[in-house]
C-alpha cells in the first residue's frame, strides 16, 4: 500500500482551519477589551518559540508520528503515559469544540433542536472523513480555506459603513499585566493547540520543511484572526463585544448592504460549520491514532467511529449548561498547560539529547 501523505500546502491549510476551529465562533479572549488586538499580537509572538519547538520535534524525527517517538525516547512505560495523555487531550478537545458549536447552534440558529442532533451531524462528517485517505482531508483544507477567507473579506468590506474608529481608544487603558494575560490565554486557545498536529506528522512528506508548515500556518491564521478581532471591535465596540458570547455572530447581525442584504449571520454559520468540521476531524484522527497505538490495533481508521461516539458522549456530559462551559474556557489555559508546553518540552529535550548521542537510530 502506498503511504498516505499530504502536500505541504494541504498541511498548511488544514492547520489554519484547525486554528480557526472554534475560534471564529467563540471569538478570542476579550478580557483586555479594546486592547484585545494587542493581546493577540502578544499571543502570536509568544506562540512562535512554542511552534518552533513543535516543528523541531518533527524535524528531529521526520516522517514519524508523535506516538511512535515517545516510546522510543521514554521507554515503554513513560511513552505509554504520554500517549495516553495526548490521546485524552485530543478526545477531550474534540468534545469541547463540539460542545462549543452545539451551544452556539442552540443559542443562535437552531433554537428548538436538541444539541445531540447537531453533534451527531458533525461527528458523522468527521468519521466519514477520518475513514478516508488523509489526502482527502488535505484536499478539503485546500477547498474550504479560500471559502472561509473570502467570507471574512466579504463581511469586512460590507461592514465598512459600521466601523467606529473610536472603539479602539484609549489604547492600553488597562494594565500591561492584563493585556499580557490575555496574550497567554490566546496562546493556549487556539494557537498552541497545534500541538495536536504532532501525532499527524507521519502524514507529512519527509522532504517538506516542518518549520515552513508551522510558521506559515501560524502567520495566515494569526493575520486572519487579527482582521476578525479588529472588525468585531470596530463594529461592536468594547461593551457589546465583551457581553456577547459569540461576537462574530453579533457583528454579522449588524452588517447590511442597502435594503437587500441584511442579517447575514445565518450565512456566517456556514463558515463556522466548515472550520468546526476540520477541527473535530483532526481531534478525531489524533484520538483514534492514539487509541490504535495504545491497544495495538493496526489501522486507526477502524477506531474512527468508536472514538467519534466517545467524543459525543463526553461532549454531552461534561457541562450541564453553557455557563459552565464558559467558566471552563476561562481556566482552559491552565488545564492545557501540561499538554501544550510540558509534554512537548520533555520530548524535545530528550529527543535533542538522544539524537546528539546517536543513541536513537532513525
Amino acid at each position, binding site marked *: 500500500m502506498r503511504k498516505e501523505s499530504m502536500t505541504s500546502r*494541504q498541511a498548511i491549510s488544514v492547520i489554519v482551519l484547525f486554528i480557526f476551529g472554534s475560534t471564529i465562533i467563540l471569538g478570542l479572549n476579550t478580557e483586555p477589551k479594546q486592547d484585545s488586538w494587542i493581546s493577540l499580537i502578544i499571543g502570536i509572538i509568544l506562540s512562535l518559540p512554542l511552534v518552533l519547538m513543535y516543528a523541531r520535534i518533527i524535524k528531529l524525527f521526520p516522517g514519524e508520528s508523535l506516538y511512535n517517538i515517545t516510546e522510543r525516547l521514554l521507554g515503554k512505560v513513560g511513552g505509554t503515559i504520554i500517549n495516553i495523555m495526548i490521546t485524552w487531550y485530543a478526545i477531550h478537545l474534540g468534545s469541547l469544540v463540539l460542545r462549543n458549536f452545539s451551544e452556539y447552534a442552540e443559542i443562535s440558529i437552531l433554537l428548538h433542536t436538541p444539541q445531540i442532533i447537531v453533534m451527531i*451531524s458533525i461527528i458523522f*462528517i468527521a468519521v466519514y472523513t477520518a475513514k478516508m485517505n488523509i489526502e482527502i482531508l488535505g484536499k478539503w483544507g485546500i477547498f474550504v480555506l479560500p471559502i472561509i477567507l473570502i467570507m471574512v473579506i466579504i463581511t469586512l468590506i460590507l461592514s465598512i459603513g459600521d466601523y467606529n474608529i473610536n472603539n479602539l481608544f484609549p489604547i492600553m487603558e488597562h494594565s500591561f499585566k492584563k493585556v499580557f494575560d490575555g496574550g497567554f490565554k490566546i496562546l493556549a486557545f487556539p494557537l498552541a493547540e497545534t500541538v495536536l498536529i504532532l501525532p499527524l506528522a507521519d502524514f507529512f512528506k519527509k522532504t517538506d520543511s516542518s518549520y515552513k508548515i508551522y510558521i506559515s500556518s501560524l502567520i495566515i491564521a494569526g493575520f486572519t484572526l487579527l482582521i476578525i478581532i479588529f472588525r468585531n471591535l470596530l463594529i461592536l465596540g468594547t461593551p457589546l463585544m465583551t457581553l456577547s458570547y459569540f461576537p462574530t455572530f453579533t457583528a454579522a447581525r449588524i452588517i447590511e448592504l442597502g435594503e*437587500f442584504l441584511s442579517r*447575514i449571520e445565518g450565512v456566517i*454559520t456556514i463558515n463556522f460549520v466548515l472550520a468546526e468540521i476540520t477541527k473535530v476531524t483532526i481531534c478525531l484522527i489524533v484520538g483514534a491514532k492514539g487509541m490504535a497505538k495504545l491497544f495495538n490495533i493496526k489501522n486507526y481508521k477502524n477506531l474512527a467511529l468508536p472514538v467519534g461516539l466517545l467524543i459525543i458522549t463526553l461532549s454531552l456530559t461534561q457541562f450541564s449548561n453553557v455557563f459552565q462551559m464558559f467558566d471552563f474556557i476561562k481556566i482552559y489555559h491552565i488545564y492545557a498547560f501540561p499538554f501544550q508546553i510540558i509534554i512537548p518540552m520533555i520530548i524535545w529535550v530528550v529527543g535533542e539529547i538522544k539524537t546528539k548521542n546517536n543513541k536513537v537510530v532513525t
Partner: protein
Amino acid sequence: MAKDRKEQKKKIIDKKVSQINNSLNKGTLFNNLKDNLSYMKELFVDDDLFIIREIENNFNPSFRCAIAYCEGLINPNIINESIIKPLMISKNIKKDDTLIDHLAKRIIQLYNIKKTKIIKDIVESVTYGDVILFIDGIAEVLILNVKKFEARSLTEPENEKILIGPREGFIEFLPTNLSLIRRRLRTNKLKFKYLSFGDKTNTQACICYIDGIVDNKILTELYKRLKKIKIDGVIDTNYITELIKDNRFSPYRTTGYTEKPDVVVGKLLEGRIAIVLDGSPIVLTIPYFFVENFQTSEDYYMNFYYTSFVRILRILGYFFSITVPAFYLAIIAFHQELLPTPLFINIALERQTVPLPTTLEMIVLLTVFDILKEAGERMPKGIGQSLPIVGAIVIGQAAVEAKLVAGPMIIIVTFTGITSLLIPKLNAPIIIFQIMLLLLSTTLGLFGLTIGLSYIIIHTLNLKSFGISQINLTGEFKYQTLKDTIFRAPWWQMKKRPKQITKNQIRMQQTEAKQNV
C-alpha cells in the same frame, strides 16, 4: 407419468447440451466432410438461418467441399463470385497435403482468410457473418470474411449537438467506428487491441491508445479489471462502465463517454484510453476527471474567452441545481431574517393560501418537472409539441392562479430544472444530492445544508478513476495544471498534457511554441 417423462427428456437434453458445450470448448474437427457437416448440423439444430451448401469441382470430382454460413450476415454476391465459382470451375485442384494452403492462396479470391481447427472459433465466426469452408479429408477449415451488415449512416449525435466543429458521430458497427478514429490519427503509434465480452454475446470490443503517451500503469489496471468481467452479455458500453467502476455506489461517473470521434481523438492525444464496443455508438474514455463533466467538444473549437465563460456557467449550474431548492427552503423555514422585509411579506402572502407545506410542495413540483422532462424526451415527435403547453400553462400558471402552489416556488423549481439541463453528464448526482440537501435543510436549516454540502464535497474529493484522483487539489496552483479546468486556455498555451495521466507531458515542442507566440 407424464411428469416423469418430461423430466427424463429434460435430463437427456441437459446431457446433450453439456456434451456439446464440452466438445465446443475442447472439440476439434473430423477428417471426414460428412461427419463434420452432421456435427455442425447438430450444433445448429433448429436454426433455420444456418445454411450449408455442398460444392464439387467440375474437373476433379474427388474434390468435395462445403460452405456454411448464416443468412443475412453475408454478402451473397461475393460468395457466388469469389468462393463458389472458383471452387467449381478451377482446373488445378489436386488432393494433396498442401490443398488447404493452395485453396487459400490461389483459388479463393478474398482479402481476409483464416485457418482454424477449433470448433469454438468456427461457431463464433459463423455467427458473426463469416463463411466456413469445410474440405473433405482435412480436419481444418478456412474462415472467409464476407461480412455485410446493415448499419446506420453517420449522423450527428442527438445528445451532443454542437454549433461549430465536426458533426460526425459513431454508429453501432465496430469497424466503422475504428476507421473513424484511425482516419483522424494517422500514426503507427495508435494501437488497437481486440477483446471480447460476454459468454453468450461474445461482443467484440477494441481498446485504443497512443503508445508513448499512455501511462502503462493505467493500461495494466484497465486490463486487470476487464479480465474480471464475467457476464452473459454486454449490450452497451454502460455495462462495462458499471462493472469496472472505482467508487461503485457513487452517483458520479468514473469513465467518460462520447459519441463523437473527434472527442475520442482529443482524449487519446491527452494520454487517455478509449474502449469501443461493437453494437454501441458510445465510446468510453478513461481515466476520467471531474472537470470533464463540464467540458464539451465545442469548448476547444470556439473562442476561448467565450468557452471559458460558458464552462464557469456550467460549474455554477451544477452548484445551483443542487443547492438552490434547499437554500430556498432553509430561508423560508429557518432564516426568514435573511430576506428583506417587503420581499418576505410578499412571499408570506403568496404562501398563505397554499395547502401543502413548503417542503412537500417543493418535492411535488420538482417531481412534476422531472416527469415533464422525461415525457418530453421519450414522446414521439408528433405529440411532443403539446407538452410545453401542458407544462407551462396547466401546471405553471393555472396552479398558481388556483392557489395550489406559490409563485416563488415555481420560479425556484423552474430555475433549478433548467440549470440541471446544462450538465447532462451529472444528472444522477443532481437528482440524489438535490433531494438529500432538500431533506437536510428542511430539518436543520442552513446548518443541515452545510453538513450535506460537506458530505458532498468530501465524497467528490474522494472520487477516483483507475486509481487516479478525479480532483487534484495539491494546493499548487500552477497555470499549466489549471489551464483546462475551470476555464479553457487558448491553444497556444496548452503546452503540456495533464500530468496525472501521462509521463510524456510535452505537447508542443518548445521551438514551435515560440514561433506561435
